[in-house]
């Protein structure tokens, strides 16, 4: 039983971490300007974090 738990932790832990990282990477901000250009700010970029926080509060 202890082995099974250790195996689950060993395999499931990293998988859970990677899944969470992948989800976080999907968080982003798209800014569209009047000249037709677009800027994407990825999660982790300092400019994006503030906008993501405000957006999260809005939800």
């Amino acid at each position, binding site marked *: 039983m202890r082995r099974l738990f250790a195996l689950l932790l060993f395999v499931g832990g990293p998988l859970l971490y990677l899944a969470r990282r992948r989800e976080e990477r999907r968080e982003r901000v798209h800014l*569209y300007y009047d000249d037709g250009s677009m800027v994407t700010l990825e999660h982790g970029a300092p400019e994006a974090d503030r906008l993501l926080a405000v957006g999260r509060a809005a939800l």
Partner: protein
Amino acid sequence: MDAVGALADLTEISSQVEAAVVFDEDGTVLASTLDDGAPGERLAGAAIDLLAAAEEQSYGVGRTLTQLEVALREGSVFVVRDQDRSIVATTRADPTSGLVFYDLKTCLRALAESPAKPKRRRTTKERSDA
């Protein structure tokens, strides 16, 4: 069409939009799909904060921000602004962004094309001495 009617059309057309608020440049809520009062004002306030924070970005120098999307795990927040009105909407996660932007712009366009309400004339009753 007034703001309430435009929002009603929006929520009927777009199944992805969960909540939407139309507000003016001062942040005054013109119409909202949320309950009257605080929730609509809070969403409009967040949209103004988003626009202000986005305009601070160096990328925007010399350009005007017209719309933005904040994509989160829980859902997305969209803001589209016209000359004197803006609309903010929240959706579920992974929305079809292009479609949501199109619906929001259609809503703002419907508001812009609506004829201004005729001003009420003040009528004064003539006083009769009799």
